[in-house]
């Protein structure tokens, strides 16, 4: 952790260097803009090769040993796990499931959360989506269980070994950024159409947060604590078990929370390959542009997310708590058991309660459609004007510079930028990533996408800092905002696609809005966490010398929260990149549209995969440049 006073410091020279770079950049644009253009699809070698690779996968499904001994058994195991889960939910019925869910919440997380869980389960029925909700619950349970099982050990390892971390981080970046649409048709070649492919796709996308935050947590344990226990003769293993793991629990829970959110956000995408659940309801609604039905299904996903998140965090807070009284424990377990019995007995005693009564079903479809109809007619003129203003002043100038400049000048400029804010290694990474875009034959598309991504990431961080500091400093703001943030993170983009289109039209601005809507909540949450965990004694010390709130925020909290602000920046960029494809569906064009084309038409599969790789390259470049810009540069004074 950097020292508090060193946080905001930056060599003054960097500022001037950046200014000169900007001037040179604009000068070169005026001189060379529009010269030596590259067309999309030129050169085409890599795209053709990828096309070939994709079309041969799966040819030897029944004979290839890799399929016979690895993929096919995994497919069967996942399918069986899913079928068993569904069978269980059907045997238990809605009363049984609700009772067990509530009982588990009661036992592991307490009364308040038990009530929340009860309401959550009833909501699935009220929204008319009980079966779909159970299918999703089973899928998420399997995915999150596997994520935690695999992810926490990997995270601990990465936290203790620099070398392993260096090896792992680019892989995690790729897993999170590579658009799922680019690899879904490939996953189905390995794991067939249906739940197994859905679970694998979900796993790929949702495992990185738990690994990352476990890693950050282990590393965040103050070295004093580690050294103190070492000096008392503890082994590495004991230090890990008694100091590092317990002290990093809070960060790790944020990781599990993010994993649950990520898993739920993959549900709709996985539905594209016949994975059952709420995603199907969302897609069916999107197909006929029934905004109300889409929000209805989206709400069920949000309810499930909030329920799972609260119960998991509630449970893990309790694990560390010392001895609940024996009596209290008995009451809780007793009530839990009684609940389960009641839930199991109800259908037998009152047969009319065995199945959910249609009369209790009240989806929010109609009111949402009415509201949307009004907004569509009355707000559109305002949003249209705003879209045009924003596009003219922000998107067009940046896009013009990036797309019309000869590619080698742009690459050189980014390399210099990386060198100014970072190290030689950063500059090389940036150059390699951009050269990859050229070689993939996707330079023009890449620059269109890069424009939108830069703007979206900047907006995300602005929102993240403002609301993150607010929620971090004020517990009640956190309580009010958190459900909204959870909703923003897990509400499937397919739900708000049509409203966004109706308000902002099929434009690049719509693509940016969609990306910010998805990325900002994560940034806000992580920054809020960073601000909130600034030790109280530091804060008291600051107050005792009479600092104003402004000084407190700028001089103490933000600098102290820097490690998590950097995580927020990383996740913000990654989430923005993850939305590039959704952007392609609403007028963003660029790489996102290429990925969608590749998903839809096999003859573009090579293009789609190449575009997916280009998205990863852009994401890694942006991440490395921004991370090194955010880190405190090691000047002579800092080295002890």
């Amino acid at each position, binding site marked *: 952790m950097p020292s508090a006073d060193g946080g905001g410091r930056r060599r003054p020279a960097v500022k001037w260097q950046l200014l000169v770079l900007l001037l040179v950049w604009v000068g070169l644009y005026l001189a060379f803009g529009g010269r030596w253009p590259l067309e999309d699809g030129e050169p085409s070698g890599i795209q053709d090769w990828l096309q070939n690779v994709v079309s041969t996968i799966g040819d030897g499904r029944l004979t290839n040993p890799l399929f016979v001994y690895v993929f096919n058994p995994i497919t069967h195991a996942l399918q069986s796990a899913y079928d068993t889960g569904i069978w269980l939910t059907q045997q238990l019925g809605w009363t049984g499931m609700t009772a067990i869910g509530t009982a588990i919440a009661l036992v592991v997380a307490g009364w308040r959360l038990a009530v929340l869980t009860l309401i959550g389960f009833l909501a699935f029925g009220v929204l008319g989506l009980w079966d779909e909700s159970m299918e999703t619950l089973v899928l998420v349970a399997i995915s999150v269980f596997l994520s935690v099982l695999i992810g926490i050990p990997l995270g601990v390892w990465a936290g203790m070994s620099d070398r392993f971390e260096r090896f792992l981080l680019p892989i995690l970046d790729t897993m999170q950024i590579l658009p799922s649409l680019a690899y879904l048709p490939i996953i189905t070649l390995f794991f067939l159409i249906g739940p197994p492919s859905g679970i694998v796709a979900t796993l790929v996308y949702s495992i990185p947060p738990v690994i990352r935050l476990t890693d950050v947590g282990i590393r965040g344990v103050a070295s004093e604590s580690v050294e103190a226990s070492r000096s008392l003769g503890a082994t590495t293993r004991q230090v890990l078990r008694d100091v590092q793991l317990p002290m990093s629990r809070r960060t790790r829970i944020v990781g599990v929370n993010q994993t649950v959110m990520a898993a739920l956000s993959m549900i709709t995408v996985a*539905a594209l390959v016949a994975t059952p659940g709420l995603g199907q309801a969302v897609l069916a609604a999107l197909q006929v542009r029934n905004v109300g039905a889409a929000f209805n299904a989206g709400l069920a996903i949000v309810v499930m997310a909030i329920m799972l998140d609260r119960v998991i965090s509630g449970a893990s807070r309790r694990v560390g708590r010392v001895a609940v009284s024996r009596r209290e424990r008995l009451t809780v377990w007793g009530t839990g058991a009684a609940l389960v019995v009641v839930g199991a007995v109800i259908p037998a005693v009152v047969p009319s309660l065995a199945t959910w009564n249609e009369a209790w079903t009240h989806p929010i479809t109609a009111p949402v459609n009415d509201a949307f109809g009004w907004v569509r007619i009355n707000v559109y003129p305002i949003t249209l004007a705003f879209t045009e203003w924003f596009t003219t002043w922000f998107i067009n100038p940046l896009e013009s510079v990036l797309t019309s400049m000869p590619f080698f000048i742009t690459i050189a400029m980014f390399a210099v930028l990386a060198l100014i804010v970072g190290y030689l290694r950063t500059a090389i990474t940036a150059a390699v990533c951009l050269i990859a875009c050229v070689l993939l034959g996707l330079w023009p598309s890449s620059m269109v996408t890069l424009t939108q991504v830069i703007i979206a990431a900047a907006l995300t961080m602005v929102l993240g800092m403002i609301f993150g500091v607010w929620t971090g400093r004020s517990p009640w703001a956190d309580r009010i905002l958190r459900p909204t943030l959870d909703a923003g993170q897990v509400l499937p983009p397919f739900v708000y696609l049509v409203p966004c289109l109706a308000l902002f039209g099929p434009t690049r601005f719509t693509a940016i809005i969609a990306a910010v809507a998805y990325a900002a909540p994560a940034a806000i949450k992580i920054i809020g966490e960073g601000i909130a965990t600034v030790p109280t004694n530091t804060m008291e010390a600051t107050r005792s010398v009479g600092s104003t709130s402004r000084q407190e925020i700028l001089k103490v909290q933000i600098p102290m929260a820097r490690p998590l602000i950097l995580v927020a920046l990383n996740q913000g960029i990654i989430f923005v990149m993850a939305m590039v494809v959704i952007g392609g569906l609403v007028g963003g064009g660029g790489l996102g549209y290429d990925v*969608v084309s590749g998903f*839809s038409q096999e003859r573009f599969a090579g293009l789609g995969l190449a575009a997916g790789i280009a998205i990863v390259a852009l994401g890694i470049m942006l991440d490395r440049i921004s991370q090194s810009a955010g880190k405190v540069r090691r000047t002579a004074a800092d080295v002890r």
Partner: protein
Amino acid sequence: MAAAALLLSACAGNASSGTSTSGSGNATTASCGSTPINIAENAWTGYAANVAVVDYVLRTKLNCKTKISKVDEQVSWQGFPTGQIDVILENWGHEDLAKKYITDQKVAVDLGPTGNQGIIGWYVPQWMADQYPDILDYKNLNKYADMFKTSESGDKGQLLDGDPSYVTNDKALVKNLNLNYTVVTGGSEAALITALQTATDQKKPLLFYFYEPQYALATIKVARVALPPYTAGCDADPKTVACDYPPYTLNKIARAAFIDAGGPAVNFLKKFNWTNDDQNKVAADIAAGKSYDDAAKAWVEANPDKVAAWLAS
């Protein structure tokens, strides 16, 4: 275990598409076998109409079990070699996939046309055709280019494109027909229809790439802009193409082994054939919120002759 798995997922499939297996009486005695017929459902409402009616007839008239898998087009073809998909009910071209799975691997067969004609072309909302009648000829489009400017198209007129599932030559067409337009990528069917709806409600100009049969056209009226007529081979070179899109004969594709096994279901699927109007009727009902079964039942009861012809052996 495998059979149990199939049964379970069959239930799940039916539940999610809002159908129920408790069909009405008049089932024929012909045995349909106990394994469910796997129907691929691609994500557009016209296709959904085919699924609704075929599924309904299979279950209620032939006593078959069905499983509907909602998957994307190219992924549904992947189901032929693995046996996960038995039939695709509305195929648009896909020469590459047909070559791979029908010609090369021989795991799929062409079951013949669905009777639906696919049309691709450039359209404007009906109010524009009424107000500017000569806009329906591509030669007059340049005259109106200013009207179609947007934040996305800069100083040229916007031609809104981009359902990624369909072929497009629009960039080449704009260039080769010397039109002062730029192709803007909408990116999805939802984007195109939402833009069309806004353009209709708010009387905003819109020139866009679209296709029929299409359920949205049951409620929103559009007019097609005439491009130079299509002649065989005029679109051979994608760089120099300067003619309209060819009409598509939509067809059904099935798994070879499934067809070889024969039976009443195969006979029916081969014969299934109806018009664009038929499909639009069912699709509009589904889009309006009817369940697949209700929409299918209404149409089947109104068209007993067509259904009888499909079922004749």
